[in-house]
């Protein structure tokens, strides 16, 4: 689905990304993690085509090839720069960190905006999309809010509307840019579950998520890419990436890493670095 080859990007002389290569396979849930300023969001911008890489290339849409010895690779994709803007929007959708602005459009109208890349210049679509929009609103529990305007919704509700819009876009590749940042833990799980559920129902939908929260990343992602100072320092399953040593090396703290009692995914328990509270209490 994605073949990123030695990506590099600088802004005003300072290097944000250098020599980042990785592949994402069709149907995967792929996480990108790393500390602040490690280049996660920049990498996502290169994948979505809103920014151009200074070095290297991103090819989208390649097929997964399995060699006789079992190793996988991706081939046959097209460079992201070669897609026309609307064509790209039918292929890639992006769910942003900030909820949608408080505008006067209704929930249904915003969801319908997701159909823009499929419409001709008159705003018509060869096969109508009304059914699609209805079922999306139903599934996300937005049907009762369909005629409310975004001005009257909470941040969490607006983020769900953003997801509805992205679903209406019917992409094959979904990019998430820290979509849970401004949500409470309940809304975080709800949003991630909705995305997971969508991926299960949609053959071949690939998700690439930039995530701040390592525990969420471990719970939802098949594989993780760990970035530090613009370089890839590890790609692998959550178990391989989220080890105490790596976290110490990249984030500079020593948390407790344990297996999730129910799922077995690695989970990180933070602890104060300057003396543990319990000990002080005696």
């Amino acid at each position, binding site marked *: 689905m994605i073949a990123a080859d030695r990506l590099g990007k600088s802004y005003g002389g300072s290097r944000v990304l250098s020599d980042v290569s990785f592949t994402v396979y069709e149907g995967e849930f792929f996480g990108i993690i790393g500390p602040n300023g490690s280049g996660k969001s920049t990498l996502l911008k290169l994948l*979505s085509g*809103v920014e151009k890489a200074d070095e290297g290339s991103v090819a989208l849409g390649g097929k997964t090839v399995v060699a006789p010895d079992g190793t996988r690779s991706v081939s046959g994709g097209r460079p992201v720069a070669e897609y026309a*803007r*609307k*064509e*790209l*929007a*039918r292929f*890639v*959708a*992006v769910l*942003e960190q900030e909820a*949608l*602005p408080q*505008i*006067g*459009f209704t929930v249904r*109208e*915003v969801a319908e*905006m*997701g159909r*823009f*890349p499929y*419409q001709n*210049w008159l*705003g018509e679509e060869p096969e109508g999309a009304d059914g699609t929009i209805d079922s999306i609103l139903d599934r996300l529990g937005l049907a009762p809010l369909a005629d409310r*305007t975004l*001005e009257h919704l909470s941040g969490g509700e607006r983020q769900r509307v953003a997801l509805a819009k992205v679903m209406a*876009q019917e992409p094959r590749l979904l990019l998430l840019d820290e979509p849970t940042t401004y949500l409470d833990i309940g809304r975080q799980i709800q949003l991630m579950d909705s995305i997971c559920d969508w991926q299960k129902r949609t053959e071949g939908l690939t998700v690439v998520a930039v995530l701040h929260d390592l525990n969420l990343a471990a719970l939802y992602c098949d594989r993780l890419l760990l970035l530090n100072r613009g370089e890839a320092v590890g790609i692998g399953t959550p178990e391989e990436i989220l080890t105490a040593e790596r976290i110490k090396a990249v984030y500079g703290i020593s948390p407790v890493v344990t297996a999730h009692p129910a799922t077995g995914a690695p989970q990180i328990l933070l602890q104060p670095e300057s003396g543990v509270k319990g000990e002080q209490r005696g």
Partner: protein
Amino acid sequence: MRRKVVIGGGAALALLLLTVTFSLSTGSANLPPADVWGILLHSLPGADAWLTPHWEVSSEQIVLKIRLPRIALAILIGAMLSVAGAGFQGVLRNPLADPYTLGVASGSAVGAAFLMLTGLSYGLFAQWTVPVVAFATGLLSLALVLRLARVQGRLRMETLLLSGVVLQAFFGSLVSFMVSRSDKVINEIVFWMLGSLALRGWSYSAVLLPYLAAGLIVMMGYARTLNLFALGERQAAHLGVRVERTKVAILVVCTLMTAAAVSVVGIIGFVGMVVPHLIRLLTGPDYRLLIPLSAIGGAVYLLLADTAARTLLAPTEIPIGVVTAFLGAPFFAYLLRRKSRSRG
């Protein structure tokens, strides 16, 4: 959506028709609306067969030769300024934006003021000298603003607004200088800047019509794209909008309309900022509705303002820019208060 267009559009057109009738019958000579319609219908080809004139010839002269051309101009200018204002507000995502945000008006004013100060005009084209030069300097100011605001191949909206402010200040100083050098008692430049629809014949409307027509078509084509801009530029890009190209196209089209309007009638403020807001308060933010209704709403608003401008203190005229702001500002304030009350 279609229902909204039919209802809103129908109501707006009915209002426009009413305003035209009112404006045609009001003035130094008050004519009954029935006569006004008789005269209008009678002027259509082949109307002699079924309509016998029962009004005075002078009424016909007043309606067809004096009031109608002026009304046509008011409709065109009002529509152009309002559509341009809607476009600027949409693409800049700034509620304070109006057609003059990018300094077009002050650019045009520099050209016009220079001609008036020096008294230059060219024989046969005398009537057209000021409009043509004002249009040219208006476009020049747009080019300057776009040049100033382009950073690394991108137009950042904040930079664009600031560039407009800078240029307006600079051109404004030039105009003020020329006003101060002009020794005429009633300063022609000041009056030009306050705008006027008086004494403009059909030929000006004929020149403006293509600008409005082309501008409307382009802006209607971009209506859905402007809706996406409301989500933010990046969201629009993710949905398949070529953001930079769209911004430049809309800014250029709206500026062309504004420059054409300003070059003919001077600077009429407030219409382009307030009418799109009024329509937005009434119908919501959808540009597919906002653009056509702004066109009609702007026409109605400017026509009313011009009727007031020529009748309130007759026989003297009030500069129309004064009327548009004087009537518009309190009404707008009222609507804003009502809206915020209903929300809270």
